[in-house]
């Protein structure tokens, strides 16, 4: 049953298009929304952009966007180049709609990732991208025509959002339906490595790690029998995440180590073992999740871990003086008030806990960036912990992007300029801004746009 909207005023939908009404990739999904709700279409050229559109789809210019009451609006953003335009407006709900990743260049993919990370929910037409995103965030929907019931949930998500209701409850229902569809296909066709692997992934996303492991091992056996060269790293490695999420960390580390072939992977395995021996179970868990690309769960656990390490006064246990080495940190104990984090991690020295917190913060920022959550990542990045020019450049670029997404364009540009002073190639951020502006102009004119 759909939750009731919390607002008494009638919500409305604003579409940030990928093309004109007649050429949008999402006409099938927009039509039912337009049939039930007034839709505002962002364009500076209504004649071109809205040719053939129903009467309740009306234009709103880019200049008018800042005069709307966004607390009652749901934004449907159909192109990633709108990200820096729409995010500062802070609509009540923001849906990022995307076909998938085919044919995109790196820059466009980067902005698509940021939009997906910052949106309230995401709808995609591609299952691989849907699963990829499901490991980065919640509230993702897929509409791929593979299953009628699954598609219905995705369509409902759009309608709920247009009505001002967060579609999150539908996300789990759609996952359950898709898992069931794989189960049905497997019972009809017998063992298939690919189908079993997908089912395992869905079970994991639904929180059934035990069932997911059972299915994964079946997929692994089938893959080996079929001579799949990636059976070990492409399928079996996922077992380490499944075991970690069950709290079976020793087995999880062993599962990862069995798949560790390259020098980097073996170094990862060595680090996992070392940290496990030192009792750093929380960090080992998130490292395993990250090694399996589950940045969603990793970020969630890291935020909890770091919040537990915050001192009573609100200070973090990371050093306030970022220039100090780890040894110096030890002598500055008066600055710390370290809380015990984990029953298994009792008795650790403050120095070790400080080092653990610094690692956790670094991993959290990376996982948030992998998830496209630029603004959240920037909040965890502390300028006083920066030690190298490269770190400083990355910091300025990150802050600049976060400022841009918050609507502070001039401050963002100043941040990018500071980054350019430190590293010449950071000028790319300013070039990117110009490309975005040009793309938005084309989209608002009723055309299409790429960042290539």
């Amino acid at each position, binding site marked *: 049953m759909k939750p009731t909207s919390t607002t008494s005023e009638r919500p409305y939908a604003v579409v940030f298009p990928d093309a004109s009404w007649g050429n949008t990739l999402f006409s099938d999904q927009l039509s039912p929304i337009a049939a039930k709700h007034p839709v505002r279409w962002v364009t500076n050229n209504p004649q071109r952009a809205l040719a053939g559109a129903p009467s309740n789809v009306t234009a709103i210019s880019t200049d008018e966007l800042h005069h709307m009451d966004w607390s009652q609006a749901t934004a449907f953003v159909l192109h990633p180049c709108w990200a820096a335009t729409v995010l500062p407006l802070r609509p009540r709900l923001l849906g990022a709609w995307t076909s998938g990743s085919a044919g995109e260049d790196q820059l466009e993919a980067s902005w698509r990732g940021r939009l997906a990370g910052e949106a309230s929910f995401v709808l995609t037409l591609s299952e691989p991208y849907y699963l990829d995103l499901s490991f980065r965030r919640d509230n993702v929907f897929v509409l791929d025509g593979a299953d009628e019931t699954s598609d219905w949930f995705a369509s409902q998500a759009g309608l709920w959002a247009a009505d001002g209701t967060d579609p999150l409850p539908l996300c789990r229902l759609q996952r359950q339906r898709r898992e069931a569809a794989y189960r049905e296909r497997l019972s009809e066709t017998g063992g298939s490595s690919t189908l079993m692997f997908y089912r395992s992934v869905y079970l994991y996303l639904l929180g059934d790690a035990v069932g997911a492991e059972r299915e994964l*091992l079946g997929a*692994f*056996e089938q893959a080996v*029998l079929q001579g799949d060269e990636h059976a070990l790293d492409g399928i079996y490695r996922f*077992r380490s995440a499944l075991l970690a999420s069950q709290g079976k960390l020793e087995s999880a*580390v*062993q599962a990862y180590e*069995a798949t560790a072939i390259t020098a980097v992977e073996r170094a990862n*395995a060595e680090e996992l073992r070392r940290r496990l*021996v030192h009792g750093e179970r929380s960090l080992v868990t998130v490292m395993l999740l990250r090694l399996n690309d589950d940045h969603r769960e990793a970020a969630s656990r890291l935020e909890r871990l770091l919040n537990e390490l915050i001192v009573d006064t609100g200070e973090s246990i990371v050093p306030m003086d970022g220039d100090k080495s780890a040894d110096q940190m030890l002598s500055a104990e008066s600055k710390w008030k370290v809380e015990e984090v984990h029953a298994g991690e009792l008795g650790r020295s403050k120095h070790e806990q400080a080092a653990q917190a610094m690692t956790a913060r670094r991993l959290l920022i990376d996982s948030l960036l992998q998830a496209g959550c630029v603004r959240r990542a920037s909040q965890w990045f502390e300028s006083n912990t920066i030690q190298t020019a490269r770190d400083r450049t990355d910091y300025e670029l990150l802050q600049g992007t976060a400022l841009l997404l918050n609507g502070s364009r001039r401050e963002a540009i100043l941040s990018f300029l500071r980054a350019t002073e430190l590293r010449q190639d950071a000028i790319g951020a300013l070039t990117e801004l110009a490309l975005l502006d040009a793309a938005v102009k084309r989209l608002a004119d009723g055309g299409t746009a790429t960042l290539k």
Partner: protein
Amino acid sequence: MQSLRKASGNKLTAMMQVRNECGRYLEASLAQLSDVVDEIVIVDDASTDGTPELCRSFPKVVRLVELRRPLFGEEWKLRSLLWETAVSTEPDWLLAIDADEFLERRTIRRIRELIDQDQYDWAALRMYDFWGSLTHYRDDLWWNLHRRHTMMLVRYLPGFHYAYPRWDHHVPRLPITCAALPGLRSELRAKHFGWAGDEENQRAKYNRYKQLDPDGRWGNIDQYESILDPAPNLIRWVEEE
């Protein structure tokens, strides 16, 4: 917590399933293995000829499971039992070998090199089918196992998912999932004496295959028929030291 892969000091355990092996090659096989491996684990598939007693006479046989009811018709169960028994002795590496198989002397000399490293988790050898004698091996359309590699050595990785296909016959000697791990295809050789007996012995084996698998469900009918080939292509074996 130790690394799964040790580059030195690995314990090598031979694993073998046997059934009514007295008077054949078992004694010689165990004698050779006793010089090569650290421990031997055996599952006896309900022998009636005193095979278990012979096994027990070798001190390196650290575990011997004696089945009362044969599992020959459900080979995957037999293989799985042998595997579980072998890994329960905490080996670092396992050598899967039959009672009628022998390692060439050069292989014996170099076997520790194969296992005392941390780069790969299995090693495959070339297996030669000796035919009608211990001096020649067979090499033709149906008998060319030596042209491929046979996985015989695997590192035991605790916690790894080891599984055999649930087949009644012709089950691989080692869990199929080992093949996903990095391995080495070696040119070192092993000898299979199962067909080295006389014509009467070969016909008896032919009859047994035809009885067990009359439709060629588990093997190849043409290969079964080739057992009776009156003039197989035989090549003289030259042992490498």
